[in-house]
């Protein structure tokens, strides 16, 4: 085929174009909705949700996980474009993680004895927390990878990691509606682990899924 002919066909295609921010917002909306439905019908919201929402820790958790999601968004918004880098996102994500880990360590060190510190670290749900966040985030990760594949990432592993971070942040924020844990120590370890697991899965999947 002659290139001129191809250009004719391309010029005839007037399908509307949607810039990455709009498509990513749609992914976040759909992903949050799926996670919310899973929390409502499968995990169930925490029974003291109304009173918890009056406390500070509920919002601190939400702020932390939302910051991780925003970091993922900032990174993928750049990495979904050719030759784009995710520096802004990595900086925000790293800073949020550092702050929460520092707060968690301080809180653990202030506890009266090692038993109390370990108790804080394990909470009531250490065995299921990260896995639940992982499950809540997988649908959004899948949607995100499909959307980003339609964009033009030239660093597939980094783009996959950012997509996972984005999905993990959103999923962990929704998970806060279910999870009654309220220490920095717990959140810094298990929430972060769940979000990072999604980012790692995104990076591994990105290696082959984000080629075009």
């Amino acid at each position, binding site marked *: 085929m*002659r*290139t001129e002919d191809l250009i004719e066909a391309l010029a*005839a*295609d007037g399908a509307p174009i949607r*810039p990455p921010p709009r498509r990513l917002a749609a992914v976040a909306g759909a992903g949050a909705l799926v996670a919310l439905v899973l929390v409502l019908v499968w995990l169930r919201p925490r029974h003291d949700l109304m009173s918890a929402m009056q406390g500070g820790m509920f919002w601190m958790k939400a702020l932390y996980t939302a910051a991780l999601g925003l970091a993922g968004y900032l990174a993928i918004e750049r990495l979904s*474009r050719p*030759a784009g880098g995710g520096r802004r996102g990595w900086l925000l994500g790293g800073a949020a993680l550092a702050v929460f880990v520092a707060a968690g360590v301080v809180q653990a060190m202030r506890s009266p004895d090692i038993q109390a510190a370990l108790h804080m670290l394990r909470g009531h749900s250490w065995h299921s927390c990260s896995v639940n966040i992982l499950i809540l985030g997988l649908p959004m990760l899948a949607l995100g990878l499909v959307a980003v594949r339609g964009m033009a990432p*030239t660093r597939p592993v980094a783009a996959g990691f950012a997509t996972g971070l984005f999905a993990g942040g959103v999923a962990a924020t929704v998970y806060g509606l279910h999870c009654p844990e309220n220490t920095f120590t717990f959140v810094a370890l298990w929430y972060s682990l769940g979000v990072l697991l999604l980012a790692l899965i995104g990076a591994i999947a990105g290696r082959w899924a984000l080629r*075009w």
Partner: protein
Amino acid sequence: MTETETRLKALMLRGLEGDASAYRACLALLGARLRAYFARRMAGAPGDVEDLVQETLLAVHLKRSTWDPSQSFTAWAHAVARYKLIDHWRRRKIRQTLPIEDHIEFLAADEPEPSVGIELDRALASLPEKQRILVSDVKLTGLSLAEAGARAGISEGAAKVALHRALKVLAERMRHAD
């Protein structure tokens, strides 16, 4: 060189606003640049140059939403071309490194004559009949999308969707051609 950027960007912006002839001119100008760019880097396989030009033009078209109009269009198109070239080498298991290059150099080139691409025809032949007829009617006989749709027995709206889908499938199949 920057003159080319100015022209390309202006044409692309008008193309994005729905000016089909500006868009056509933009892709034709870009196609010539791509041909020169690939030809210089693929001296060992001149037969693949036109295929890669076409694959890159398809990508530029399908992924044009990722260009931020506040940025250089040439830099964006160069990054797409570079990705396509590296991907081509990777698929063919050719060990080669592409030095970091400036996108200004991407514009500076003599332009070889276009040849005929083969992979696109192969990909086109594998499309369902209706989509294939639609693509060839629009490109070969210069029919409008509505007329081409009518010949394929579908409405203009359905023809729009079908053409877009066909282009996406073509882009995908060209990558898996080898």
